[in-house]
């Protein structure tokens, strides 16, 4: 079984400041990792994913994440946030070859302020 821990339930940040949203996972097998964003009253949209290869993954809207196998982490970063980045961010994992079933973290609410 897999589990995902998002250490911060809320992250307030000023516009144009950098941000890091933390994600750690636990699994007895190799996994694929994902970050999804949920804007208010909307469904989930994929930000980025790590399947294999380079551990630094770039996604949409200027976000990137780095897979660290030894620390079982997949932290999400953006060097300069915008008001429009205010949303809920979910980290998720699925086991390799495990049929697509996603396990989600509890989410981090990113609030960007002027």
């Amino acid at each position: 079984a897999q589990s995902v821990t998002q250490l911060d339930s809320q992250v307030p940040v000023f516009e144009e400041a950098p941000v890091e949203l933390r994600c750690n996972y636990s699994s007895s097998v190799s996994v694929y990792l994902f970050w999804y964003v949920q804007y208010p009253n909307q469904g989930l949209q994929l930000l980025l994913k790590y399947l294999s290869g380079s551990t630094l993954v770039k996604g949409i809207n200027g976000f990137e994440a780095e897979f660290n196998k030894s620390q079982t982490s997949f932290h999400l970063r953006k060097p300069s946030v915008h008001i429009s980045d205010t949303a809920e961010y979910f980290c998720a994992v699925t086991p390799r070859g495990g049929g697509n079933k996603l396990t989600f973290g509890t989410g981090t609410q990113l609030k960007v302020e002027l």
Partner: protein
Amino acid sequence: SAVISQKPSRDICQRGTSLTIQCQVDSQVTMMFWYRQQPGQSLTLIATANQGSEATYESGFVIDKFPISRPNLTFSTLTVSNMSPEDSSIYLCSVGAWDNEQFFGPGTRLTVL
């Protein structure tokens, strides 16, 4: 990518009634899933909707409460039966892609009074 629509987008229902949520995909897909997102919470997988056979339910979810149909490769329904206020949630369907990505529908926001 897949385009997914859900009906209804939201509903307010009375305790003890049932609601059927529809999920339509614009292309044929093998894997379809139903998730629940309770207020202020993360997403929890309810079941995998299998075409031509019974759905596969996760621990804590049963067919009598959440019957699922999957008549073809582009459509599925989830019924929330004998509802109580604890069933107030957002219900989302998703489809799996070849590279393990999932595409999500916009969700159905359910309030049970």
